[in-house]
């Protein structure tokens, strides 16, 4: 119950800064409409189109996490919101949980809306898209959010974190577009580890291959589980080491 008002507050903040939706929801939507413009209200090749949608859902998972995880906590810390609510709500975990729930709600709403629009425009099975999205969100959202909590544990100010966050999404996009998964090589594992977008994309593709039982999964579930655990450990350690007082004063 104590999380509800704070989650509601963070949702209000996210809705207030509408410009973020241009990058997190607008870019995937415009991109998919532009790249598949010839197939609007027709039947494009289903598997390829679903893979493209999985790619943009993984982009959404990573971009929302980049914006709402560590970098958002750094902002809350520098504005002293974290310090204020540490004493009101009695521990920092509640603030982090509330921030996470608001993130989850906005991400889920955006992804469902994206699936709905894509299924209408390209005559895709909405149930399949929602199923894949649900699995991707269930599996990836906590680990990816945890990974970016790392920013909150670093002694960097918001002015330093923000450009890094802006650059990272382009970096992730580029290396995911040059998709190297398919074999469990050392390079692939390294790419999965360093690129959460590739990780989320592979989770989606693995579930897609499970649905269309003919295809072999791009990576093993065990590897994905291992990566999830590493991301979760990074998040846990980051929360423990997270600073409450603003860096600029201390």
């Amino acid at each position, binding site marked *: 119950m*104590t999380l509800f008002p704070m989650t509601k*507050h963070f949702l209000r903040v996210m809705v207030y800064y509408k410009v973020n939706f241009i990058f997190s929801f607008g870019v995937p939507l415009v991109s998919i409409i532009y790249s598949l413009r010839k197939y609007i209200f027709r039947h494009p090749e289903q598997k390829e189109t679903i893979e493209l949608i999985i790619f943009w859902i993984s982009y959404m998972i990573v971009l929302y996490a980049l914006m709402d995880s560590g970098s958002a906590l750094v902002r809350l810390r520098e504005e*002293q919101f974290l310090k204020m609510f540490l004493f009101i709500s009695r521990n920092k975990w509640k603030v982090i949980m509330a921030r996470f729930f608001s993130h989850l709600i906005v991400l889920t709403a955006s992804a469902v809306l994206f699936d709905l629009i894509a299924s209408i425009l390209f005559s895709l099975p909405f149930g399949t898209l929602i199923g894949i999205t649900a699995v991707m969100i269930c599996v990836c959202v906590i680990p990816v959010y945890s990974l970016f909590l790392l920013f909150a544990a670093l002694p960097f100010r918001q002015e330093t974190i923000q450009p890094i966050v802006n650059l990272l999404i382009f970096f992730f996009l580029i290396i995911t577009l040059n998709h190297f998964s398919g074999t469990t090589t050392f390079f692939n594992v390294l790419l999965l580890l360093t690129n959460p977008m590739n990780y989320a994309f592979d989770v989606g593709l693995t579930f897609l291959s499970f649905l269309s039982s003919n295809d072999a999964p791009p990576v093993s579930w065990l590897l994905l589980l291992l990566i999830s655990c590493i991301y979760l450990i990074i998040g846990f350690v980051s929360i423990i080491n997270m600073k409450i*007082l603003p860096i600029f004063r201390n």
Partner: protein
Amino acid sequence: MKIRHLTYNYPKNHKLIFDNLSLSIVPGKVNVLIGMNGEGKTTLFDIVSDLVKTDAEMNDRVPIKDILYQIQGVPILSTINGKSLAELILCSSGQYHLKDITPKLFEPLLGNDPDSVRKIAYLWRMQYGKMSPGERRWITILLYCLINKSLYLFDEPTAGVDRYSANQILRQIQMLNKRKKKTIFIATHQIEDVAYFSHFQIHVLAHGQIVLCEDQDNWIKEAKKSKLPFLKACINDLIRCRTE
């Protein structure tokens, strides 16, 4: 709560903020910390609230869950109204439910002050961004006073607020102490604030130490003996304030 042998400097700064400082917060009383800007009042609050770890000897420490710390100038989303602010602060404390959040909640605090009752009704629907800084501070402190804790830290609660609103804020703090017997630790450099309280313990912070610690009956007498220009100016201001 007692602090002994507190010596501290910021990690990236060699300037000594506290030099073997000792402080005793008198329980159940209004403790006023006065000091010039930059003397380390907020840092001392951070140490008292255990946000900053030091090697100082600390006795009868109040656990963090029993402390409420009012911080200066935290930006809150400008579009939320007074009611949403009340929901955010009170429900996040875990001591209130959404259904409790009505202007009636403030009646025991505001008592028979019709002006304050009208003010809360007016601010209830007003957006936070449209409130004046004084109104924001007043409603926030009012909300803080509704949360049940043992130790309340108020960091310059009247800074930038007109005298009338400042007195309204101080009245809430005074009631928190008088009615609920809570320990208050309030930092200020506005000496007129002290005149509002009938019983208090004053702690003067200067040059990294508590140079004066006296109750309401003795502090002026002791302060007059001090050679600190800041303290002399404070005394003159207070005497002028009382004669006016």
